[in-house]
């Protein structure tokens, strides 16, 4: 009987170290091969393909013959509609960090106390996150339509003057969507922060209290630094999510009216699926990929590195 690498058992005993090494690599190779194959076929190859398509003017039907080089990229960066979409993504990143972080942190701190009905409250806050994007979008579409639930509610509580064309007002629509997105994703931030808070040893707060620290100071010097890694991970997810935002916007407004709520992803789908400019849309996809990639790498290098290297102990000490 021959072994896997073709050598006989007799010879194997003559060179045991080499054979063992070979076997080891063969085993590693065999076990890794399926995973690597999947990764290459479904990730690397499509990315390379996309870069290739993005260099052509292509409607998705004909052969790839119309090579335009970087023409698609030039067009994208020169198109005011795409620049507007990029701007929207940028604003969304800032809004998410500035509004969602304090809000989620506040709620998490509140829910971390011994409150009556704490689990019910946690459930309520987390529930929107479990809903699919499509369902959230359709529900809010009904709520926010003219004379819909939102308008009716405002009128009933005597705030009828605040009623707006939530989705039709060019100045307002993007912020309306931001509120929906916050409603949808805030639960995830809260759960993350709650988990982080539970990992902070009670003794540290006690020690701080014994040293005469007020609860505000204790929050400032004990809770927040120890929650740092969790916050930084959440911020990373929020940034990437804001850059890639698509579903809710597409279902609620299609990026309109007149591009007032567009994102890079809605622009891409509009160009690709509605206009059949597959080559051009792919160049937008590559730009989107590039931005996410660079942001991820920079974030890893500049922000997350300290969490990996130093750990939490270093930051407290």
């Amino acid at each position, binding site marked *: *009987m021959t*072994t*896997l690498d073709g050598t006989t058992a007799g010879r194997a005993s003559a060179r045991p170290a080499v054979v063992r090494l070979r*076997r080891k690599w063969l085993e590693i190779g*065999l076990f890794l091969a399926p995973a690597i194959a999947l990764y290459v076929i479904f990730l690397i190859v499509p990315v390379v393909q996309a870069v290739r398509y993005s260099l052509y*003017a292509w*409607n*998705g*039907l*004909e*052969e790839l013959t*119309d090579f*335009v080089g970087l023409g698609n990229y030039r*067009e994208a960066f020169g198109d005011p509609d795409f620049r507007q979409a990029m701007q929207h993504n940028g604003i969304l990143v800032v809004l998410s960090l500035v509004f969602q972080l304090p809000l989620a942190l506040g709620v998490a701190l509140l829910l971390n106390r011994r409150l009556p009905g704490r689990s019910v409250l946690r459930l309520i806050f987390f529930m929107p996150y479990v809903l699919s994007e499509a369902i959230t979008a359709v529900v809010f579409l009904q709520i926010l*339509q*003219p*004379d*819909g639930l939102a308008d009716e509610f405002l009128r009933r509580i005597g705030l009828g003057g605040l009623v707006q*064309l939530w*989705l*039709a007002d*060019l100045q307002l*629509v993007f912020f309306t969507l931001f509120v929906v997105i916050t409603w949808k994703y805030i639960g995830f931030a809260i759960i993350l922060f709650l988990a982080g808070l539970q990992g902070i040893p009670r003794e540290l707060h006690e020690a701080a209290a014994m040293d005469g620290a007020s609860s505000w100071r204790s929050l400032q010097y004990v809770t927040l630094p120890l929650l740092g890694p969790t916050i930084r991970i959440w911020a990373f997810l929020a940034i990437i999510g804001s850059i890639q935002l698509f579903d809710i916007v597409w279902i609620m*407004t*299609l990026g*309109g*009216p*007149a*591009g*007032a709520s567009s994102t890079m992803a809605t622009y891409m789908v*509009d160009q690709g*699926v*509605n*206009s*059949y*400019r*597959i080559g*051009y849309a792919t160049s937008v996809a590559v730009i989107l990929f590039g931005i996410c990639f660079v942001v991820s790498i920079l974030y890893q290098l500049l922000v997350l590195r300290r969490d990996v290297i130093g750990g939490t102990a270093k930051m407290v000490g």
Partner: protein
Amino acid sequence: MKISHTKMWKLLVLAAVVGVAATLLSAAGTAAEKQSVTLVWWHNVTQGPGVKLYKDIASEFQKKNPDITLKVVPLQNEQFRTKIPIALQSNDPPDVFQSWGGGGLVDQQKAGKVTDLTKYVAPWIKTIGGSAAGWQVNGKQYAVPYSVGVVGFWFNKQLFKQAGVSAAPKTWPQFLAVVSKLKNAGITPLSVGGKDTWTEAFYWDYLAVKLCSKSVMQQSAVTYSFKDPCWVKAGKYLQQLLDLEPFQDGFLATPAQQTPTSAAGLMANAKVAMELQGHWDPGTMAALTPDQKVPGFLGWFPFPNVPGSKAVPGSLLGGGDGYACSSQAPQPACSQLLAYINSPSVQRRIGSTGFGLPVRRGTQSSVKDPNLGTVLKFRTTSPFIQLYLDQAYSAAIGQALNTAIGKQFAGKATPAQVVAEIAKAAKKK
């Protein structure tokens, strides 16, 4: 547990053997099936009166042609946009598929994905007259329409009466006067689905049809030149209407036809007096009313003419549904199906069920609905029917046109800017 090398080797060999065997078996299977012709038919009839009709058509055709195996795949209309180009590129495209003609068909023809049907349909194509033109490329028939309609104003007779409007407007100034009259009576004159910009584009398209000469319109889909002053004029006339603020609150975010608060839903539930829409609108409206019936107050009048323009009065904007055969489709089986859909029996049922407006001469009396009868009368007597511009042009230009017009509706573009954006899209590849 650690699997020994021998065992693992055996497993690998076993997997390989099973794989090869499966391939051989499936190959044998396809060889057996090839004895009769299989026709895969993708259509977009998934709701309304057409569903039963299509089931009947399929089973009748199957009975008449036992040597053809018909595989029917109904797909939701919006899915066609993404599925057709992908399927046409694959090795396994559908044989018969929905086609709206115009620029989309030109793109498919240029890529060699559709069959030239001219010789197959020659015996009967004359029965549909001028309607066939929208599905031709360079004079050759690449798809055949089975239902063609025109866009016009659906209006609420009761609300018109209430506002003291006695006759349908025949000219653009008369139309603007009706809008003002309705507004003064406290009635929202028009609904439009600004979220779906093609509904807004109908206004601009139609004004172009009513302002530009026939040859300018026809040439625009070939040369993509928009230099004639009539294009900017269309936007200026449109602006006259927009300045009256004739639409429902928040029209920029209203969907076209999906919910009771969509543009069609508002019309169906008597919240507005008029809606500019295609011939399918009564069917759409019926689904959006509490009793699921076409509202009794509904009337129809054609888009008003613009006096003193170069256009032939009575020119209309329209479009329809047809079928193309992909380049790999078995012939004559595919053309036989198209011929059957064009047969008097099927064409009459398309009319009598309210599913569409039949194209075959002599079957038009089957349309029972009085409003659709009016639409059909105008369609048959019209000197020129322009295909919806977003459909007539190549997809990229058509979509840019809708987007640009949407910007004008939102107050973000002037008539000149709209034309400039369309011309810019036409220059791109």
